[in-house]
């Protein structure tokens, strides 16, 4: 087995239990919190990805493939004509079950007892039996699989836990963005996203550290939470260039960075960009990421954090751009503080929101030097965009797409693809209209995809009963010039 296939300290892993996915960073003696249980992943270090584990006390214990495929098929009834509607078929009460648990009974044993005490189990068809067993096992067994994070898992995780944070991006739509954008190693990508770095991560994976990515970011710092999950070599980040959305005016040829914001002092401009840079050392120094921000933070968590955060930063930040949007600010704050504050990686959503994440703001003494670096960075990106035509424009963000699209479109070389995602069709139709009039694109399409999963089982094959109502919409096309 190759050394890349085993779980190592410091890596981000996904724990999959039933349908639920959780992202954690693996450290010896770091407690992980899953489904109300706390335990250590120490046993898993050095073991292969894809392994299945049971929680025993505070530790985890590898499940052998034989144990895993323990799919009982028992003697079943032929149909459900004898089964009446009542809740009395289960003789075990909730109290009984609690008692079993408190006695330290293993989950598998509890499930077995439930079956024995069900009067209707034997009369159920084998299919109903299997369904029943699965339901009870998911409830009472503390069994999970450790997986290497990839785009599919991350996208599923975000979509399940906080769809709006991920602007509802669905797996098939994300797949289409990457393909329609012709993402490949070595090209120049211009992109803007507000899906916590998921799209950025997916793009970076397909570029493998070669080429250029100009990331337009809406808040004071680019949000790259999901990027960390990929465990990329640190060199990948060398291809990344951040540029703030509110400095797009600065890209106009005649503007210089100093005269750009006449009504704001230069220092204010720099302040606004500060957070952007606070992350940079981490990216460029290539040091290992020692903290893990958790994308599953609950709303209550988020509020707690952003409130505290805002108070501390009030003086530093003079513009109110992220006010009244604690959600996004939360992301910022998190990105901001990455590398500065060690946070518990296992902060949980919902009930578990009282884990007391402590954080303090570090006042930076090299303020002036950083301002200078920031100005230089802006100039670098401006020169890049003016000297090197971009190979693709990718957008998936929570803003009205048209103004951003029109601002960035001009930096594309001719005969290059562009892709704009939106959860709603109407804003894309605006872009479509603009494109048809601007005359610089062909093969323009607005599409939506139906993703349908099937249950394929003997005698029980059918499309899944529940399905996503929409995966959002994509505008795609190819630039042309009207040079003859």
């Amino acid at each position: 087995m190759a050394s890349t296939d085993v779980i190592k300290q410091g890596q981000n892993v996904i724990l999959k239990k039933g349908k639920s996915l959780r992202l954690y960073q693996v450290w010896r003696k770091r407690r992980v919190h899953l489904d109300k249980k706390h335990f250590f992943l120490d046993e898993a270090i050095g073991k292969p990805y894809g392994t299945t584990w049971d929680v025993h006390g505070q530790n985890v214990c590898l499940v052998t493939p034989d144990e895993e495929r323990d799919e009982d098929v028992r003697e079943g009834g032929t149909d459900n004509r004898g089964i009446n509607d009542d809740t009395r078929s289960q003789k075990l009460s909730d109290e009984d079950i609690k008692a079993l648990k408190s006695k330290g009974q293993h989950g598998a044993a509890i499930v077995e007892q439930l079956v024995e005490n069900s009067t209707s189990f034997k009369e159920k068809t084998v299919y109903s039996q299997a369904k029943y067993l699965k339901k009870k096992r998911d409830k009472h067994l503390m069994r999970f699989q450790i997986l290497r994070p990839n785009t599919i898992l991350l996208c599923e995780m975000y979509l399940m836990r906080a769809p709006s944070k991920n602007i509802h991006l669905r797996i098939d739509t994300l797949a289409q963005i990457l393909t329609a954008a012709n993402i490949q190693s070595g090209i120049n990508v211009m992109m803007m996203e507000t899906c916590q770095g998921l799209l950025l991560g997916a793009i970076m994976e397909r570029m493998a550290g070669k080429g250029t990515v100009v990331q337009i970011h809406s808040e004071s710092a680019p949000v790259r939470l999901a990027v960390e999950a990929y465990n990329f070599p640190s060199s990948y980040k060398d291809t990344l260039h951040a540029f703030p959305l509110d400095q797009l005016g600065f890209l106009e040829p005649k503007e210089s960075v100093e005269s750009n914001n006449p009504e704001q002092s230069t220092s204010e401009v720099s302040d606004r960009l500060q957070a952007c840079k606070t992350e940079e050392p981490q990216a460029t120094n290539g040091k290992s990421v020692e903290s893990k921000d958790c994308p599953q933070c609950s709303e209550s968590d988020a509020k707690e954090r952003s409130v505290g955060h805002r108070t501390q930063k009030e003086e530093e930040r003079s513009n109110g751009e992220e006010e009244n949007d604690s959600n996004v600010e939360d992301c910022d704050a998190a990105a901001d503080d990455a590398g500065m504050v060690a946070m518990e990686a296992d902060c949980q959503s919902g009930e578990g929101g009282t884990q007391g994440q402590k954080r303090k703001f570090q006042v930076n003494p090299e303020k002036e030097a950083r301002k200078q670096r920031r100005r230089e960075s802006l100039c670098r990106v401006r020169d890049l965009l003016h000297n090197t035509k971009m190979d693709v424009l990718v957008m998936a963000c929570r803003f009205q797409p048209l103004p951003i699209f029109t601002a960035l479109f001009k930096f594309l070389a001719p005969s290059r693809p562009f892709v704009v995602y939106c959860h709603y069709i109407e804003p894309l139709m605006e872009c479509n209209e603009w494109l048809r009039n601007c005359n610089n694109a062909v093969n323009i399409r607005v599409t939506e995809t139906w993703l349908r999963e099937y249950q394929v089982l003997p005698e029980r094959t059918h499309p899944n009963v529940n399905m996503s109502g929409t995966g959002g919409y994509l505008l795609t096309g190819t630039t042309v010039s009207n040079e003859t």
Partner: protein
Amino acid sequence: MGFLGYSDVICDGDKAIVYLGYNSMMSLKLSHGTVTQTKRGALRHSDIIGKKYGCRLSTLSDKGYVHLLQPTPELWTLNLPHRTQILYFADISLITLQLELKPGSVVVESGTGSGSVSHAFARTIAPNGHLHTFEFHEQRAVKAREDFKDHGISHLVTVAHRDVLEHGFGIDFTVDAVFLDLPCPWRAVSHAKKILKTSGGKICSFSPCIEQVQRTCEELGSLGFSDISTFECLQRNYEHRTVILPYPNLGTKTVSRDDSKQASPNPDDSSSLQDTGIPGTSTEARQGDGATDIASGTTTPEAGKPLDRQGETDREESDRNEGGSQAKRPKLCEGAPQDNKKGNSLNYPTKCAVPWKDMPGHTGFLTFATLYILPGGS
């Protein structure tokens, strides 16, 4: 009672549909002296009896109000007690049309199940048709018979407790159409052939799994049915939502939007045109429910909304998303993040037709066929 025709006044013994708010209804059998609890407060039946259908009624403690609706087969389908998995509106509609049901049709159904299809059939074949419905589960047959009596359609429906797969339909006349909703429909096809008119009798079989469809189609073909076709019919709901996508701040010198008709005021000179956003259009904190349905945007503040709005926007008991957790309601990123301070960003509300987050991915396959046993030769 609207199961057949309509009547204006609510009577003792009627079954009424209590409309509690968006996606939230319940059925109520009215009886003097009874009080029923709802999530909007208690309802005294005596207050209801004598009122007109469609009226609004405040609950006892004046906590809220409800509307009282006449039960149509379609409303009943949404409110009946589930004794089995039931068929819904889209499938029932297509079945009714494909079976060519109309007043006077004689139709057979098996199994009766919860009676969702039976009510729709009875409505369509009234006043002079008949539905023979068969159910192998005795308890269900009894309950269905009670429902039909309660709903004033028992003269149109005969319920039989019978295992059709084993014993056939046991009737000695022919019928216009047969509807099968059985675990092994292919085993009922030959029985159905015996009772179907041979001059264009229609059959429909509903099955959740493709294997059932495959066997049924094979059996239909080998028994001489023609025009065998299989469909799926899925309904997608749209809501009217006024979405506020933030207008991006591109810096002082915004890039001109040449061809766009929408005005593009400079975000920085911001005479706080819309700096407080538009009340009543926020979409935040609704995503958790999945099937969000915010009443369409008006510029009236929420407080000034007509009373009914309250009901329409209440999503607490969304029946579309039973699995959805109520506890976690992540904030919607695109929902109205209004920049009050300095007003340096403008948000344009966009009226959007947004599909519900979840939709039925599958109900079942509908297989239709026609029986013509025709004389040969010319």
